[in-house]
């Protein structure tokens, strides 16, 4: 029996979370260093996973399989394909930056020494590590039930992160801020919980179908896909469509797709910048990932049936998110709406059902994670200096804090998919993949790029250029810790923008497998057009 590598990648942050939470109240700094060390060790393990993964090998690798709850037909089954590897790597990569960027976010307020038992700092970092562990398990689970358990369970630590550690720079007084925060946390939880419960009904339905036809209920993704391929398991058209909808709804809330997106601006606006990164760059990726792995894998025909509607929703997300981003007065909410627009691109790529589209969507997940992290974390540093999230409160920052302004610009340019930076590659692939099958959708999506340029550049212009605004005059530039957060992210953006091959090599075979699940091949080039 081989070393359970995937379990180890998830278990390490889980154990780290418990250890961090157990650090005594007075040793706050020790808890921070412990969390950082654990997240770095997890990154090392994730790197091992990436290197052990053979892109040309089996579809699912590093598999583990144990009986968990035999009565429900549930197995503890882990395994990764290229998409899973890429996203586990992204998660493990971003968490150290999240920890480092949030170094002081959970410190007790100036001049107050909280009582012995209340340990917010330890709790903050423990919760981040707990989320990391659950996200990694979700990316690695090949058992639907196992996936569902962690998909739902991760809401709880996320909820406490949003509601318990809000952005102190937001509202005028603490009471108002607490109210907003608690509203955002509850909204986040209720949206996602409701989506998850609908999925629960579908999960149970899936069990009933498999139990009915295979004699024994199963949740194993591979077993179900094989049984469907061999004709052993057939789903009535309506059953399949209903189950698909149950799954898709949960993922669409998580992703988030218009019109189920409204929790995201609240959640990202009210939480601290690192937590906002955790939401949009890490946790939400579980939603789009699950569309690829579970919706397409389990319900190919229903996916094809739903494609037109999903594409339409994705297009609305792209345009609507971008338009609302332009109108935002709050920096963090602007980035949140930009993310909604980007998630539209990801979903568009997935449901275009072409290899470029899906490969691009997977790359997009990774690149969006890195670029949003860069932009959001710099924005967080900016906000912590001035104590305001409002764009109108800034101006001329590039004169007093050039490095901050420069990194902010690069993060912004990445967000608008400037060629040479990583998101360009993925956005281009998604558009190409969409054009080959749905040219009209491709044209609409292209507007999203134009609008992205608008909201990013206007944001930069209003905050960074012009005369130095009040309260900005003495703004210090990035500190060492902050540079240590931003510099590697920007380096990665450039590296993956110029040389995305390692990533595409890992992702592409997995995409081919997914496409063969839905029995789609890329459309032939149109010969007439070439005449």
């Amino acid at each position, binding site marked *: 029996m081989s070393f359970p590598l995937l379990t180890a990648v998830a278990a390490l942050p889980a154990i780290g979370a418990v250890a961090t939470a157990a650090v005594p109240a007075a040793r706050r700094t020790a808890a921070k260093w412990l969390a950082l060390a654990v997240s770095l060790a997890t990154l090392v393990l994730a790197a091992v996973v990436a290197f052990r993964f053979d892109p040309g090998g089996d579809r699912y690798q590093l598999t583990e399989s144990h009986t968990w709850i035999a009565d*429900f037909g549930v197995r503890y089954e882990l395994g990764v394909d290229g998409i899973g590897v890429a996203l586990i790597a992204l998660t493990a990569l971003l968490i150290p930056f999240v920890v480092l960027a949030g170094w002081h976010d959970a410190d007790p307020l100036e001049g107050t020494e909280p009582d012995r038992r209340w340990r917010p700092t330890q709790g903050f970092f423990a919760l981040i590590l707990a989320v990391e562990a659950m996200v990694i398990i979700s990316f690695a689970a090949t058992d639907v039930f196992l996936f569902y*358990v962690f998909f739902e369970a991760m809401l709880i630590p996320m909820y406490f992160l949003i509601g318990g550690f809000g952005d102190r720079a937001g509202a005028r007084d603490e009471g108002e801020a607490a109210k907003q925060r608690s509203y955002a946390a509850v909204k986040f939880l209720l949206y996602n919980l409701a989506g998850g419960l609908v999925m629960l009904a579908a999960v149970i*339905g899936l069990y009933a179908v498999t139990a009915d036809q295979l004699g024994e209920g199963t949740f194993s993704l591979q077993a179900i896909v094989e049984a469907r391929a061999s004709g052993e398991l057939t789903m009535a058209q309506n059953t399949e469509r209903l189950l698909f909808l149950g799954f898709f709804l949960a993922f669409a809330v998580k992703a988030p797709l218009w019109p189920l997106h409204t929790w995201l601006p609240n959640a990202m606006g009210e939480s601290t910048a690192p937590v906002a990164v955790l939401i949009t760059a890490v946790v939400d990726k579980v939603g789009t990932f699950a569309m690829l792995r579970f919706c397409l894998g389990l319900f190919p025909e229903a996916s094809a049936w739903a494609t037109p509607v999903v594409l339409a929703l994705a297009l609305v997300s792209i345009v609507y998110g971008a338009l609302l981003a332009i109108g935002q007065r709050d920096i963090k909410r602007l980035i949140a709406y930009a993310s909604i627009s980007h998630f539209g691109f990801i979903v568009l790529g997935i449901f275009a059902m072409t290899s470029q589209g899906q490969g691009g969507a997977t790359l997009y997940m990774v690149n969006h994670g890195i670029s949003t992290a860069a932009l959001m974390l710099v924005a967080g540093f900016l906000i912590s200096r001035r104590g305001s999230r409002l764009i109108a409160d800034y101006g001329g920052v590039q004169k007093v804090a050039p490095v901050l302004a420069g990194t902010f610009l690069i993060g912004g340019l990445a967000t608008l998919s400037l060629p040479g930076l990583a998101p360009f590659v993925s956005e281009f692939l998604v558009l190409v993949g969409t054009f080959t099958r749905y040219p009209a959708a491709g044209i609409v999506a292209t507007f999203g790029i134009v609008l992205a340029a608008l909201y990013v550049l206007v944001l930069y212009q209003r905050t960074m250029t012009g005369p130095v605004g009040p309260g900005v005059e003495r703004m210090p530039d990035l500190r060492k810790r902050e540079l240590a957060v931003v510099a590697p992210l920007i380096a990665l953006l450039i590296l993956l923008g110029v040389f995305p091959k390692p990533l595409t090599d890992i992702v592409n075979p997995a995409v081919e497998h997914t496409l063969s699940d839905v029995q789609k091949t890329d459309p032939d080039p149109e010969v007439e057009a070439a005449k």
Partner: protein
Amino acid sequence: MSTTTELTLRAQEMIPAPDIEYGQLAPVLIVIGAAVVGVLIEAFVPRRARYTAQALLAGLALASAFAAVVGLAAAGRATTEAGLVAMGALAVDGPALFLQGVILLVSLVALLTFAERRLDPRAHGRHVDSFAAEGAAVPGGEGEKAAVRAGFTTTEVYPLLLFAVGGMLVFPAANDLLTLFIALEVFSLPLYVLCALARRKRLMSQEAALKYFLLGAFSSAFLLFGIALLYGYAGSVKYADIASVIADTNRGTTEALAGTTGNDVLLLIGGALLVMGLLFKVGAVPFHMWTPDVYQGAPTPVTGFMAAATKVAAFGALLRLLYVVLPGLTWDWRPVMWGVAIVSMLAGAVIAITQTDVKRLLAYSSIAHAGFILAGVIAATPSGISSVLFYLAAYSFVTLGAFAVVTLVRDAGGEATHLSKWAGLGRRSPLVAAVFAVFLLAFAGIPLTSGFAGKFAVFKAAAEGGAGALVVVGVIASAIAAFFYIRVIVLMFFSEPKVEGPSVAVPSPLTTTAIAVGVAVTLVLGVAPQYFLDLASQAGVFAR
């Protein structure tokens, strides 16, 4: 052969001497016996020694009764050797033993909260518990003051508890209607009394007891009326006989009833009345009206015990009735149960949203949970039975734990049950708030807690039993319910503590143990439920 012997022999032929399997009845006999001894202790042991004697006796009795249940199960009485005892009056089979085991464990944990004497401030230098100094004294009157001054405590609660447990042990095992009725009364009457014995807010407690008693009396009357009608229908009160008349394999045995035997009108009305009586005890809509008032007014340890154990016993009896007596009527009772389950789930969840008192909130949540459990009952399959058994085990420990936490949060007026007083509890006592959050998440059915495993089991059984629509309603109700569980968590963790807010009392090891057991069971059944699911599915067959 002398005439006397001959007469005796003839008499024995006519009136057979009852043949009682004492060994198999041991759990019930131990508990009832200990209860009787408890009454004697009240009569003869000096007052200062009573608390220790009673608490020890009750603990010992419950533990040894549990050991007896385990022994019976180990001897195969739950599976291969299952059968009827006491001339067919009681069944010793899988569901009976499983539920008796759960009831005994639940009572053992509840006993810990009954015996807690550190929470209330000392009265005149003596430790006091949650129960009135003297139940019979007029609230606020001279008698009460004198009793409090003298440091009296009501140690009668322990024999009352034991009697109630004895009745609950018989209830899910009863195999004829008269035994069912007597068991119902044996466990209900002590509960009425226990509800009236709160030390604080005595008027409310007495009001709760009176409401419980009046409505309970109604439901008993319904049950009894149903029994009479079914007797008229089948000419027998034995489950097996009634089932065989329904199945048309038997035309009745009593000549006098030949005119009515097999009359479907009697069967349907009788069956409906019987089920109504049981649904009342379960607390399903529309027979739930008593639940919030009683849960709120009763002393919290009693509420916890009642909420957990009564539900287990009553669902056990309901399962046996529907599966053993009325399987031939599945097509008649299923639609009704569908309606009851749906209304219970939705009404419980929706009304709970508006509650401002923790105990009332938990009461409405228990109504919603009764609906979830009914979804498993409706499945009418073996996996339905085992899922209900598992859910009951999981739910009862969560409930006990939650009410045990409620006893800890106190201000000058005793327990601070108004929700607004719980604001910011997480800041003051992170551990207590975290524990309560675990219980709330389990109620809400969040994965990795026992609530999720239980909910999944009953919904799965319902889906397999062809009740997919019920699953969808259940999921919607869960989403609504999640809202108010989460609201309490928000209140505890994200609200600023009130200046004059309640404090968390430091309990003795008794309550601490009770809460720790609740948390442990909640997490173990959530993460590794397989062993217990196996146990429940092995126990899923009724002896007929």
